[in-house]
């Protein structure tokens, strides 16, 4: 145990690797769940009654599916999805494998948050767009998204932080990461120092994410 740090049972290298794993999982799952969640969130907004792409069928089928996915606890999702994960990634164990359930967890969450952000956009703006003869697509990317951007940034900040928390549980499938260290060393082996250091690391990550999100959102919202 020559490389241990501050009396922890883990090495500095282990901590750094865990840090990298966490960032990797958060970044990739955020990317994929954003790619899925953003369009779904937009669909939830524009297909509702009296909106620009009113469609009962889409709205009424999408809405419960998102609710169902949102109500399954992540740890169960993680296990339940193992066959699917194996099919997609080739293995059900490890950092890459954890990304699949993380996306299933975050995509519906992001869809809901995006929906909330875009519903905040003043209906008058959409009315003005329609009066100008904008197409549905133009209304989305020229009006809805720019007007909701500041709120969308906060949405994605919240989702990212949610993902940081979820990666801790991904240790259950051997995914690694800071949260996994906290559980397997700090909690299961009563290594208090590791627990403190890892939790502190998570706190710093979350703080950094939230502050960055706030600053960017504020900058876009202006005054």
């Amino acid at each position, binding site marked *: 145990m020559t490389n241990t740090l501050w009396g922890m049972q883990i090495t500095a290298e282990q901590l750094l690797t865990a840090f990298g794993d966490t960032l990797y999982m958060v970044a990739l799952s955020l990317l994929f769940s954003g790619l899925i969640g953003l369009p779904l969130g937009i669909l939830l907004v524009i297909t509702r009654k009296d909106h620009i792409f009113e469609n009962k069928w889409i709205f009424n089928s999408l809405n419960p599916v998102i609710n169902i996915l949102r109500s399954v606890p992540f740890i169960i999702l993680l296990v339940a999805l193992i066959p699917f994960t194996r099919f997609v990634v080739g293995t059900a164990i490890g950092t890459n494998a954890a990304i699949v359930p993380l996306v299933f967890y975050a995509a519906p969450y992001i869809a809901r948050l995006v929906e909330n952000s875009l519903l905040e956009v003043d209906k008058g*703006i959409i009315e*003005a767009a*329609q009066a*100008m003869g904008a197409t549905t697509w133009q209304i989305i990317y020229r*009006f809805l998204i720019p*007007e909701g951007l500041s709120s969308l940034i906060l949405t994605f900040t919240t989702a990212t932080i949610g993902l940081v928390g979820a990666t801790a549980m991904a240790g259950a499938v051997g995914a690694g990461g800071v949260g996994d260290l906290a559980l397997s060393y700090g909690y299961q082996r009563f290594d208090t120092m590791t627990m403190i250091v890892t939790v502190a690391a998570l706190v710093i990550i979350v703080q950094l994410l939230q502050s960055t999100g706030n600053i960017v959102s504020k900058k876009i919202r202006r005054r």
Partner: protein
Amino acid sequence: MIEFQDVKKVYETKKQAFEALKGINLTVEKGDIFGVVGYSGAGKSTLIRLVNLLEQPSEGTVLVGGKDLTSLKPKELRAEKKKIGMIFQHFNLLNSKTVFDNVAMPLVLSGTPSNEIKQRVEELLEFVGLSNKAKNYPDQLSGGQKQRIGIARALATNPSILLCDEATSALDPQTTNAVLQLLKKINKEYNITILLITHEMSVIKEICNKVAVMEAGKVVEQGSVLDVFSKPQTDTAKNFVRTVIHDEVPESFLKNNEKDAPVIWKINFVGSTSGKPLLSTIAKKYEVHLNVLSANISEIQETPFGNLIIEVTGDKREIDETFQYIKDQGILVQEVVIND
């Protein structure tokens, strides 16, 4: 230019249907500044939204430039909408974009080359007098400035019709006046037909040449502004006219003369008749005494429009003859009835 033919609009909810428009017939001619006035809930907001199909008519036809927009394909409809500008009570500008980008938006949507956009937007900002605000954001502007940006944006695609949805209702009186003068200028210089809805009769008086009064989903009165102002027929119209032309006899005056009810006449002068020396003629011709209680004159559509309230005393027969004489002159006179 815009024609409503038996237009009905029904909003269906799960439990009941609400009839917002109950058979509207209106014609807005090219070059008109047509005002629709009514209390909130009268249906005027629905009415104006039928013109550019922000709302679909349930029954009847709305013709814009002779075309029924509901029969067009989506692409044709979007092209047609570019010929109809619209401004709103709450401006509906994009807060995330600069003034320049806001005004440029309709041009960007139709894929105009950026050098043309730049030229057109500069021209429009100059026209509304806000060239120096191009780089500002809407939240840095006052209400009046925001509405002028709204106007510039609405004019970007060179429309032939401008729809104004309570465009001055969120503005203070002075700013309102400036915006109205701008609308008048647009109508004159670009020959753009304007359809506006408002709940303020002063707006109608200031710039419209034609007016329709709406109540509970119906047009209860319509005609030239001068006609409706000088001879309002319905109670709603009378109430609206009263908000800008004060020709009420104060109640206290009527009550002070309880014993002997005074004879009070209200006389309206329109146009050339306002120039004749009516009172002095009466005084010479008939044995009656005239007491002017109130008089005022204003201008509607560049025509002088005045009213006079007089108390008449004298012999009953002389009074009746005088009344007939005024009528014979083609002057609108009516007796003010004192109701307890």
